[in-house]
């Protein structure tokens, strides 16, 4: 499924209703494009995620590579 284009109106509504920010129409348009770009990049990459993933795995992996370097 492809997502529909994110609209400035949605950004404005979200700002007002969920995060208590009043955003001009012009700025909302710019933000819609930026949020869409970032969100899509993550969603596209997310096919690699596993059910058992968790944030701490990243630092554990850095340390594991440290130990591997030391050998």
């Amino acid at each position, binding site marked *: 499924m492809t997502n529909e284009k994110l609209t400035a109106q949605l*950004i404005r509504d979200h*700002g007002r209703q969920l995060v208590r920010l009043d955003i001009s129409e012009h700025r909302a348009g710019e*933000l819609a494009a930026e949020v869409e770009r970032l969100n899509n990049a993550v*969603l596209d*990459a*997310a096919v690699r995620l596993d059910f058992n993933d*968790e944030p701490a795995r990243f*630092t554990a992996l*850095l340390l594991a590579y*440290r130990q591997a370097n030391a050998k």
Partner: protein
Amino acid sequence: MTPTELLNLSLIEVAGAIRRKKVSSVEVTRACLDHAARVQPQLNCFISIEAEEALKAARKADQALKRGARLGPLHGVPLAHKDMYYRAGKVSTGGSNILRDYRPRVTATVVERLAAAGAIWLGGLNMSEFAANPTGHNDHWGHCRNPWNPAHMTGGSSSGSGSAVAARACYGALGSDTGGSVRLPAAACGVVGLKPTYGLISRYGIMPRSWSQDTVGPLTRTVHDCARLTRIIAGADPKDPTCVNEPAPNYEQALAGRVKGLKIGVPANHYYDGATGDVRKRMEESLAVFKTLGARIIEIKVPDPQEIFLLSATVSQSEAATMHGPWIRTRPQDYSLYVLSRMEAGFHIPVTTYLQAINLRAHLLDDFMRQVYMKVDLLHTPVMVMPPPTIAETEPRASGDVTGIVSRITRNTRPTNYLGLPALSVPAGFSENGLPIAFQLMGRPFSETLIFRAAHLYQQETDWHRCAPRL
């Protein structure tokens, strides 16, 4: 020694001269203070200069030396730091209007460690507002300027750290790097700058920008200086749970090794896109030096840095919006438009997207390690694909394209922060118009020892790090 000769010493050299009583800490500190006062109107690299306190500390250091006290490795050496390193009760502005009078209640672990090693605090250095732009523009404290040509940007966000160290106003400085904020000013100002592995250096007591990607890093004139500062500030800190629970290696001792047989990767994709002729030439010349040292240069395709760039931006925007949300709602007029624009998208990114970006880090790090660091030991790339542009060219109000400016400047630095990997910016010569150009050496997690060794050997064969701007 004349004041100019004193100021041109490296951190290692001046620490040795003070220890051997060839020069006093008061003489050195006074020389730095006088020079800082002289260059400040041109460069605007300081937010505050603490002359009296610095001279008092220097007198104390000289007395300790006279009575034969045990000396630290930075005894009597004047340093200055990005104005976001907390000292209990002292103002720390974060380069912002909002924190103009902020007096934190705690002292940063790295500040305590530098003080314990004997360093003198000269003052707080200019920086981008809330460490949130890569150019060095600052609407509240004035733009910091490049000592090689004050019309050009310093790079940011550790703008004052790059400018002051290059200008010889101090012997070293701390910056912070969340997307390139140490490496960019180091590159643009012609000094060395380290972005360490995530978790190597404590971040306790520093102003946050993006918790998951913030790192503390030193800027110095030589790699040896940088290795010394890193040795002092790195290692376990119970106050920062993200910090590794082990002491740091002695990076200075490791400089003595060789790099014969070392495999240095040169990316075939992304890192040279849009590179100017002079940047390409300086990169080729620096690789030729590594070849003469016995390293093997290997062209390599790296996993798509553009994808990593976007994931990194998702994380930093989300985290910045979270921490700045209360102020953005109540006093938005106290932020510059540039800085607001670098946080606002974070309010609209779903939390599930943010968490996916966080969880993807381990997968992308694994990919990067398999595709790059199974084949080579280090990666060599330009820090910026062009020489530092002018302040006017990168003024967001002039172009209106904030995202475009930021992307062009940080395209080669930001991916490293998302992956948590170490990288060192090293001066590699000058552009056709006399501005510094630099390469970065990136390595495996916690491979700072190898990075320092390779870069130190490069500096033994070249003298770019000895070039000083005429001020």
